[in-house]
């Protein structure tokens, strides 16, 4: 791997006389991509530079939960850097030939900041920064949701990144085609009759659409673990692999879900603005209601439920021996009480 990386970096740093890779080690965490940190020591006529970098590599197809493209992610990061002030890693490039790293991969800049966002909540050491960090996080999300789609996604790669027939020509078509994708996917996730709850989710989404809002590029995994911070500011928003064109309320709904599961309090901040949603509404004028958040909490849950439960089913059917996919039966179960509550199941509290 190290030799392949040095070879690849030669293309990224054509001016280099010599390149060394030091401190190469896996970054624990994350169910979808394999990530490794390292420093690239680049020596050229002007001297020596150290570049803190990350290699993001696809897992083998059989164990992959979310089939996404490093090429698309690379283009997105570079578009975000060019068209917005959203703090994201620079992408040095992507490698689509699996012969090089074993699977498709990309190399991105490693950003500074604290990744232990739990330090911001409860009795954490940085609780005094929580309001400022979440204020900035909200402003970043608003910028993402209000930037012209064409500026971020000029090639239309985010319209249907899973290639499942999503139609983003209008909001109604987007919701309809996405929910149809969920429903059509049910046979691929139906590993146990208790999954009828997930089917109920899909069918309920189809029966109860909310009012339209302008479509936008959404992060797709906007959660308390996917940003870095320092000195009261977000220094990086990362893990963009599930980004797509969608309804901006999807990110708010998913953050609400993960806030509950992670026992964090992102949505309570900034307190002086009345919380994340109130501040978001003040900045956007969207006047998103709690009922809409609830709908898109369900919508986002469905969006991730399809690939996650499909991976579980593939594992149970013997298509892989990936242990994580078996463990995901527990992770999936953890979302159930809140899911049932939002669906209005009688007698169920979160």
């Amino acid at each position, binding site marked *: 791997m190290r030799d392949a990386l040095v070879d690849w970096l030669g293309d990224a740093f054509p001016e280099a006389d010599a390149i060394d890779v030091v401190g190469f080690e896996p970054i624990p965490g994350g169910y979808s991509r394999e990530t490794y940190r390292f420093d690239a020591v680049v020596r050229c006529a002007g001297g020596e530079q150290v570049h803190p970098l990350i290699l993001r590599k696809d897992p083998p197809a059989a164990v992959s939960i979310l089939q996404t493209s490093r090429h698309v992610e690379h283009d997105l990061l570079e578009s975000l850097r060019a068209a917005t002030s959203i703090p994201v890693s620079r992408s040095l490039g992507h490698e689509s030939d699996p012969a090089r790293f074993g699977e498709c991969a990309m190399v991105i800049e490693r950003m500074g900041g604290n990744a232990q966002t739990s330090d911001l909540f409860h009795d954490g050491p940085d609780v005094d920064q929580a309001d400022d960090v979440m204020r900035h996080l909200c402003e970043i999300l608003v910028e993402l949701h209000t930037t012209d789609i064409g500026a971020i996604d000029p090639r239309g790669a985010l319209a249907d990144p899973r290639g499942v027939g999503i139609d983003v020509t209008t909001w109604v078509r987007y919701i309809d085609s996405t929910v149809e994708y969920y429903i059509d996917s049910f046979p691929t996730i139906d*590993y146990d009759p208790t999954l009828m709850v997930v089917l109920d989710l899909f069918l309920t989404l189809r029966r109860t659409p909310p009012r339209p809002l302008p479509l936008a590029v959404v992060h797709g995994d906007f959660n308390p673990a996917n940003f870095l911070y320092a000195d009261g500011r977000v220094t990086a928003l990362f893990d963009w692999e599930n980004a797509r064109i969608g309804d901006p309320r999807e990110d708010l709904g998913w953050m609400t879900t993960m806030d509950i599961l992670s026992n964090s309090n992102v949505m309570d901040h900034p307190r002086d603005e009345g919380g994340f949603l109130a501040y978001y509404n003040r900045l956007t004028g969207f006047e998103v209601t709690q009922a809409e958040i609830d709908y898109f909490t369900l919508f986002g849950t469905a969006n991730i439920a399809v690939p996650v439960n499909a991976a579980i089913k593939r*594992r149970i059917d013997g298509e892989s021996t990936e242990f994580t996919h*078996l463990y995901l039966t*527990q992770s999936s*179960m*953890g979302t159930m009480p809140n899911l049932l509550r939002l669906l209005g199941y009688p007698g169920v509290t979160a």
Partner: protein
Amino acid sequence: MNTTPNIDQLLEGVLISLGTDVLPYVSNPKAAATVQMMQSILQGVRQVLPVVDQRLAEEHNAMLHVIAEITALLGGCDEVAAERIRERAAMIGAEPELPIPLPREVVADAHRAVGNALTATMIDLDELQRAGVAAADDGLAVLRAHVGPRVVRDTHTILVGNALLGRG
């Protein structure tokens, strides 16, 4: 309860993962031996699980017969120890036999078949709801009233922590 993955599938998954994801990276010989002992224990649990419920009931009933047979053999004996055996037989030996539980897979198959029927019913109810049949709303409410408490109970029974280990 989930019928899939079943307990055996979960244990098998842990066994495989210990062998492929953990053991190759354990350099301490004692730790490696401990992992192998864990595998052995888990395999033993896998072998016991399919038979334990029936065997406990069968053995319980067989022991009642043994007590009864011994008591009958000592019927003419008036020693104190024989009297104690007769008293024991009158107490414990008078317990009724236990029903032999069905094999777990038989129960799971039946459970799964009815569960699949409910899933199909939910799809039909949705079609009726979209056609404006009010009774279908009530039907879905009945289904949810059954499934909701079950799923919550399962969650409380099975879940360990927030089940987000390894996510970062």
